[in-house]
């Protein structure tokens, strides 16, 4: 983490972190297609995935523009391998049961929403514009996921146990979201992206409130995974990309 950071390079990184996270989470959520526990959730899950893919187009589109090497959002999505992906580890977690999918969504939304609120204040108007647009969608995502976490956490014995198991499993993947590295720091200093340390307070408060109402207990262990933002992922991402990228990789000359 050197002292001198090229701001455009940092912005490219920062945009990939946003766009890759929405892409990967959108992919995971879309894996539910036609398999949700109730029809309303089929609709909601497709809707969330759709929003996230739309946001991916905007973030990665801008990333390509900032980079200036003629890579489009599709090039970035379909023609990079795992080490170039900058998504958070949390979003590449496998779906598990509906409880895991929901808890993952909530823990992410609770970060995503204040993050976008911060980004809406960016000195880079391109960033701010995307954040405003995405922010409206994500406000709804958070409302839905928080509500469902409460209802299933404080639901039946089984639903409570499943939500607690999901929380225990996913908790160690949340730390990374709020620990800035040199890239985050440079972008925050330049007023382009919010200070991640600042997000922690908001996230903590929100998550504690909702989980308390859901009668769920935050795990005690302080251990946190890290590396996703820097391109060091779990074994799951490679399998996801093999699926996601099959057609553009197999038919590089085709347009669709």
């Amino acid at each position, binding site marked *: 983490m050197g002292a001198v950071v090229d701001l455009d390079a940092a912005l490219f990184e920062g945009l990939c972190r946003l766009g890759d996270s929405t*892409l990967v989470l959108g*992919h995971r959520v*879309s*894996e539910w*297609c*036609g*398999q*949700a*526990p*109730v*029809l*309303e*959730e*089929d*609709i909601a899950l*497709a*809707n969330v*995935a*759709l929003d996230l*893919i*739309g946001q*991916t*187009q905007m973030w*990665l589109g801008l990333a390509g523009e900032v980079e200036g090497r003629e890579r489009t*959002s*599709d090039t970035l*999505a*379909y023609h990079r391998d795992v080490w170039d992906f900058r998504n958070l580890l949390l979003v590449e977690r496998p779906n598990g*049961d*509906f*409880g895991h999918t929901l808890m993952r969504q909530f823990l992410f939304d609770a970060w995503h929403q204040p993050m976008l609120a911060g980004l809406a204040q960016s000195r880079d108007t391109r960033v701010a514009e995307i954040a405003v647009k995405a922010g409206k969608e994500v406000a709804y995502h958070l409302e839905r996921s928080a509500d469902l976490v*409460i*209802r*299933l956490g*404080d*639901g*039946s014995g*089984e*639903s*409570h146990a*499943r939500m607690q198991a999901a929380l225990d499993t996913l908790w160690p993947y949340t730390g990374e979201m709020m620990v800035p590295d040199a890239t985050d720091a440079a972008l925050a200093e330049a007023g382009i992206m919010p200070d991640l340390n600042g997000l922690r307070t908001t996230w903590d408060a929100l998550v504690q409130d909702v989980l308390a109402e859901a009668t769920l207990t935050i795990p005690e262990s302080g251990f946190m995974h890290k590396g996703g933002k820097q391109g060091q992922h779990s074994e799951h991402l490679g399998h996801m990309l093999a*699926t*996601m990228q*099959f*057609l*553009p990789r197999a*038919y590089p*000359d*085709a*347009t*669709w």
Partner: protein
Amino acid sequence: PEKLAAFQARIDAGEKIEPKEWMPEGYRKTLIRQIGQHAHSEIVGQLPEGNWITRAPSLERKAILLAKVQDEAGHGLYLYCAAETLGVSRDELTEALLAGKMKYSSIFNYPTLTWADIGAVGWLVDGAAIMNQVPLQRTSFGPYSRAMIRICKEESFHQRQGFDIMRKMATGTKAQRHMAQDALNRFWYPSLMMFGPSDADSVHSAQSIRWKIKMNTNDELRQKFVDQTVPQAEYLGLTVPDPDLRWNADKGGYDFSEPDWDEFFEVLKGNGPCNTERLAARQKAWDDGAWVRDGLMAHAAKQHSAPVAAE
């Protein structure tokens, strides 16, 4: 019988029947079967398309496909609601589906094997569905008619998107053209089957037409579909897999080969390429989702009882 005559008179006069009004048991039953089957088709129909969401070849195509399956789930919801006005719950309908007592459109028992199939499903399957559904906007049962109006608007959008995928594929690389032609080959006859066998000898059909639950004969609609689709295939430079297809100037429409009705009845019986897997997927969703539905109900019960306890 007097009631019945009055009922028929209202239908003949083009009036809409509303849920709380009197209706013959046969009318109600036929509607429940038809609307329920249509709803199930929307739900099961998500599966062959869902098969390609994770492999959509561009972010734009992925977004469009997601929007489409979202619409389909939405259509399912409208239709289950319309059925519910007839006194049957969504859960009852779902259980009838899973028990094999109700059907869904057989077309969804065919697999989607390449990306071009997603185009073919939009172009041909949604095309055939629209052909069936447009007249149903004028059906006699109010809630069904209103549901169809909303659905048709979105479906024609889906069909255009499907055609657009096919156009890209048919004018693309050699491999893409192969996929496009292959998709047409596999989906042509199953699409023709979507209208059902010739209803010349069906008593049911005649009654349904009198009640304006069914607006056209199967053969009329099939002919219309062929006449609309063949020029589109020509435009795409694709070959309809029917050596006997030709323009018949006398009737002002195409002569075409009948699909293999033995295959149709086999698939209906459960012996299609994907019947077992489609039902298994729905069964798994239902079983795996039980704890979620129970949990939500348990929470609702707590909310409901809390204020009472506080009194």
